[in-house]
């Protein structure tokens, strides 16, 4: 058959040499190679005791941020919900009452904020859209669950611990992340 291009390589069909046709030398060579693998290091990580290190920009579970005084950043502006390509975020806004200045940064806050982890594709567009540095994606991933309703994360699951009342938990949840702009 005519070759279509000039880059064609003919397959070599040499007959096996006598040593090759014995198969045994090749088998023994292979067995030595396999044997040498006994002495190599295994790249296995024994999971629950040790975890693989993530990069700091890894897009994992969402975290609702607070500022240094412990006030929630989120103002329920809805930009993250609009930016989300999977329509996973829903929220209800509420007005800040007189005695709640220590809880929320501005007069509008999110009374109910839910992310459906089954819809979320962990793209990070909500993090890029947020003007208040209120939501970012951290270094963990969503654990398994038996029912669908366990995957709808509300504010208690998403809020970062208060830096004033629980500083170590706050520092651990913040991880190695560098803060974005705050208005």
């Amino acid at each position, binding site marked *: 058959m005519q070759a279509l291009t000039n880059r064609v390589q003919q397959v070599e069909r040499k007959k096996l040499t006598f040593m090759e046709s014995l198969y045994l030398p090749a088998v023994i060579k292979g067995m030595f190679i396999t044997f040498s*693998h006994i002495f190599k290091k*295994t790249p*296995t990580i024994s999971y629950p005791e040790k975890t693989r290190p993530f990069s700091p920009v890894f897009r994992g579970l969402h975290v609702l941020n607070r500022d240094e005084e412990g006030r929630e950043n989120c103002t329920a502006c809805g930009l993250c919900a609009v930016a989300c390509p999977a329509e996973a975020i829903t929220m209800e806004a509420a007005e800040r009452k007189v005695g709640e200045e220590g809880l929320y940064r501005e007069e509008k806050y999110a009374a109910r904020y839910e992310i459906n982890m089954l819809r979320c594709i962990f793209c990070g567009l909500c993090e890029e859209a947020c003007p208040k540095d209120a939501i970012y994606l951290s270094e963990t991933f969503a654990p398994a669950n038996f029912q669908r309703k366990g995957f709808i994360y509300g504010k208690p699951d998403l809020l970062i611990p208060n830096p004033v009342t629980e500083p170590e938990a706050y520092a651990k949840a913040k991880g190695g992340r560098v803060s974005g702009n705050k208005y």
Partner: protein
Amino acid sequence: MFLSIDTAVIVEKLALVVVVVVASLVIAMYSTYAERKVAAILQDRVGPNRAGPFGILQPLADGLKLFFKEEIIPNFSNKFLFILGPSLAMLTAMMTGAVIPWGDKIHILGRDFSLQIADINIGILYVFGVVSLGVYGIMIGSWASNNKFSLMGGLRAASQIISYELAMGISLIALLMVTGSMSLKTMVVEQQAHWYSWNIVKQPLGFLIFLICAFAECNRTPFDLAEAESELVGGYHTEYSSMKLGFYLFAEYINMFISSTIMICLFFGGYDIPFVNDAALALKTGTNWMALIHLVVLLIKVVCFLFFFMWVRWTIPRFRYDQLMNLGWKILIPLALFNMLVTGAIILLQQNHWHF
């Protein structure tokens, strides 16, 4: 009672049988664990290490899993034959363990108990006969599955086994010409003299042929075409579940263990400690300790052989069916015949004081 039955002998042999059966089962169980660990080590992984420290209880977990699974017997298969298949496979696997010399003898309560269940004078022929019966287990199992793929798988397995039995038999003939006796105990005792009286030195080619045939008889890679998962949907044990499948898999491991032991008794001196004068050592330490040492040495050799089986499994890809048949009939049988002729010639020359 017209016959005077020596109940002591019956009790002694029964106890020995129970011990050998239980030991075979335990060793087969742990060779499944060893298989997974060896496979993992050869593949840069860590094997099972969660069930108990270092995964030691893994075979128990596997056994329990098989027990708890649902026993499915297909509707239109022959129920008696369906259950008979794995039982036959297991039976023939265990029966071969009856003639293996596990040690010399132990001296308890003033009596000598030999550590071999049956020291018949046709030892190796008995083993050969029982291995030939092992074909029945596979054929009956595949026929009773009422499944054309199982039948094809069983046909292939059966034809593979009987093809390689021939080469095994012929290489055994050469060995028998050298040893002069078929009893395994005599063979082991003869090999205890010097390190160069081990039959591997006298019959290297015979050992190679026997080894390859043992791989084929145990349906072990590279000859595991009949039971590979990607070939014919799992071959002759497609329709089996729960303990019947467990019996087939177990019978394969017991076969492996017994084949290793037989190869060791034939070629590697059985329970002989290499480079050590066994008779002198026996006089120094006493019979019972010597029997224990011999048993431990035999088990160490078996472990090395089992490792070798697994090492080969995880190195070589499996043969295609026609390559397998080609190897069995066109290459191994002529080689075994050649071996036999050369051995015969050398023995005749030796008897004739090296004149022609």
